[in-house]
C-alpha cells in the first residue's frame, strides 16, 4: 500500500533552513553588496522587497539575525524583547498589534545604535514601502530604510538553479523533466524547490526513478495546493 498522497502534500515545505551556499544572487549583486556592507555599518534598518520566490526569506533566514515571519506570527510574538538583531519577514502580513510591536522594536534598536550599542533590523515585504498597507507611522519609518528590490530569476536561471539543487540531492533530472516541471507548476523558486524535495521523497518511498510519468503523478496530486 502506498503512503497516502496527503502526507506528501503536507511535506511540501522547504526542508532545512536555507544556507547561503545555494542562494542564486544573479541580478541582485547590488542588493547583496549593500546588505553585506550594512552588517558592518551603523544603520539600524534595511528593507528588501520582491515577489514570492525572489529569495527574501532565504536571505533573512541565513542572515544570522533572529528570524520572525509576519505571515506565521502576525503579532510578532516570537521577537525577543531585547534582541539585538531581528529579521522580520512578510511585514505586509503583520496584524495591527504586530505592527506596533515592530514599530517599538525599530525605535528600541535605533536608540541602541544611537548609543553605540548593536542594533539591526532587516525587513522584507512583497511591495516597496510606498505601496504597503500598514500603519502610516510604521510604513514611513520603513520608507526611511535603505531599500532594495530582489529580482526573481529568469526561467533559464531557475532551470540552472533547479538542476543544481537536484544534483545536490543526487538526483539526475533531464532538462526535459525540469522543463516539464517548470511548465506545469508555479514558477517561483520556493514552490519549485519544494516540489523537487517532494519528488525526491516520493521516488524514494516508491522506489521508482524520476521519470515523466512519475512527475505527472506527483504534479496531478500536488496540483491543487501548489499551482
Amino acid at each position: 500500500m502506498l503512503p497516502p498522497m496527503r502526507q506528501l502534500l503536507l511535506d511540501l515545505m522547504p526542508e532545512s533552513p536555507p544556507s547561503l551556499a545555494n542562494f542564486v544572487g544573479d541580478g541582485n549583486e547590488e542588493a547583496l553588496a549593500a546588505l553585506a556592507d550594512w552588517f558592518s555599518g551603523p544603520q539600524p534598518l534595511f528593507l528588501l522587497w520582491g515577489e514570492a520566490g525572489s529569495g527574501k526569506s532565504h536571505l533573512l533566514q541565513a542572515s544570522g539575525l533572529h528570524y520572525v515571519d509576519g505571515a506565521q506570527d502576525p503579532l510578532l510574538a516570537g521577537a525577543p524583547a531585547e534582541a539585538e538583531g531581528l529579521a522580520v519577514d512578510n511585514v505586509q502580513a503583520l496584524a495591527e498589534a504586530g505592527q506596533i510591536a515592530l514599530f517599538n522594536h525599530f525605535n528600541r534598536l535605533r536608540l541602541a545604535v544611537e548609543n553605540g550599542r548593536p542594533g539591526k533590523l532587516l525587513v522584507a515585504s512583497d511591495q516597496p514601502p510606498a505601496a504597503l498597507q500598514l500603519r502610516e507611522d510604521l510604513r514611513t519609518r520603513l520608507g526611511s530604510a535603505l531599500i532594495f528590490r530582489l529580482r526573481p530569476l529568469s526561467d533559464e536561471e531557475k532551470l540552472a538553479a533547479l538542476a543544481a539543487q537536484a544534483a545536490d540531492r543526487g538526483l539526475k533530472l533531464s532538462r526535459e523533466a525540469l522543463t516539464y516541471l517548470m511548465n506545469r507548476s508555479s514558477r517561483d523558486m520556493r514552490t519549485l524547490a519544494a516540489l523537487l524535495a517532494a519528488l525526491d521523497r516520493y521516488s524514494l518511498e516508491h522506489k521508482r526513478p524520476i521519470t515523466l510519468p512519475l512527475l505527472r503523478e506527483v504534479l496531478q496530486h500536488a496540483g491543487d495546493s501548489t499551482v
Partner: protein
Amino acid sequence: MSGFWSICLSQFEQELPPQQFNTWIKPLRLEGEDNLAEGLRLLAPNGFILKWVKERYLSRIEELAHSHFSAPVAISLGIGGGRTAVAVARPTAPAAAPAEIPAAAPRIMAPAPAAAPAPAPAARRNNGPQSSYEKTRLIPGFTFDNLVVGKANDLARAAAMQVAQNPGVSYNPLFIYGGVGLGKTHIIHAIGNAILQADPDKVVRYVHAEDYYSDVVRAYQQKSFDVFKRYYKSLDVLLVDDVQFFNGKNRTQEEFFFVFNALTEAKKQIIITCDTYPKDINGLDDRLVTRFDWGLTVQIEPPETEMRVAILKKKAEAEGVALDDEVAFFIAKHLRSNVRELEGALKKVLAYSLFHGREIALDLAKDALKDVIGAFNRQITVENIQKTVAEYYKIKVADLYSKKRTRAIARPRQVAMWLAKDLTPHSYPMIGDAFGGRDHTTVLHAVRTIDTLRAKDNELNHDLHVLLQVLKG
C-alpha cells in the same frame, strides 16, 4: 600584502565577476602566514560576509592554500575590524541620520565629514551603558541646529525654542501635532537637548507613548506604582511622543493624568506630540483633552517642495556629498507625502552612486529610485495585463477569454499570454485558466509563437516593447 593572500586575491579576481569579488573577497583579511603551524586566520568585517564566505568560498581558499603551501593548511574564520566592505562602504557608513527627521541630523558617533554636530549632551554619552544622558532617552542628533525651517514648521519651531529657553514658564504643555514623518520627533528631541545643554542638571526624560504604556503595565504587574509615580514626578521636563497611542488605554491615561497634574502644578515642563489636534484623538479621556489645550497647540504641516529640497541638500551635506538642485528636486517631487521617505530615497541614491562608481546626476537618481518609488513598481497581475492589452489593441477584455479565433482577437490573446508568462510567476495552467479556462498547452503554444514571430515581425516587436513599458511603469 602577504604572498599567499595576494595570489589568492588575484585568483578570485579572475574567477569571480568583479561585483562578487568586491563584495565578498576584497573586504577579507588573512592573518598568520608567518606562522603556518598555528594555521591561517581569515577575518571578515561582519558575520554575514563571514557566513557567505564560509559557505561559498572557503573550500576554494583551502584548495588554493593546499596547492600554494603544498600541504593542507587549517583556516579558521573570524570577525575582525580593519577595512570594511568596499563596494558600498561609504554611503551606508555615515548615512546614519536616524529615521525620524526632517533635517540632516548629522551623526555624532560616525565621523560625519561635514556639519558640526550638536555638542554638549552628545559629548557626555558613551560613558558606559547607562550614562545620565542615556537615561534621558534623547537622540543626540536631533537638535535645533540641524532642523530645516520652512513655512511648514516655522511656528512650531519658534514655540519649541521658547519653551526650551524657559521650561515650565511659557507654554505648558506644549502640544505639537501633525502628520507622520514631518519632524515632530525631531523637534521634541531638540527641545530636550537644548534644555540639557543650557542646564545639564535638569532631569529630562523622553518617552514614546507606547513605552509609557509598557511602564504602566510593568508597574501594574510588579505592584510598583509608587516607584513609577515618584519617578515621573521627579522630572523637570517630560517629553511624550505620539500621545495618540494612549487610545483606549484607560489605566495609562489615568496614571498620566496624575503625572500631568503633579508636574504642571510644580511648574515642570511637559511637551507632547500627536498625529492630530487634541479634540480629534480617538479614545482619549475628556479631562486629558481639556488639559492638553491649557498651554499652546501648534501644528506642523507637510513641507512644500522648496523645503523638501532644502532638507535633502542638508542631509546630503551631512553625508559629505553635494547634491545639485536638479537631483534634489527630482527626489522631492516624487516623494511628497512625508519627510521620512526622502531619507530612504537619498540613502539609495548615494549607495547606488558608490556601487556603480557613477557621479550623482539626474539619470542616476532615476535609476536608483526605481526600487523605492512604488509607482514605478506596481504589482503586475494577469487582469492588469489583459486590460492593458485589450485597450492597446482596441478590443474588449471579454474577447480575450472568449472562444473567438479570428486573428484580430487571437493575436492579442497570444500577446497577453506571453506577457503574463513574462511578467508574473504564474504557472502555464493558471494562465490558461485566466484566459477562459484554456489548456496549458495553448499557453505554451502562444508563448512559442510570439517568441518566434517577434524575431522577424517589427511591428509586433514594437507592440511588445510598448506594452512592457506600460505594464512595468
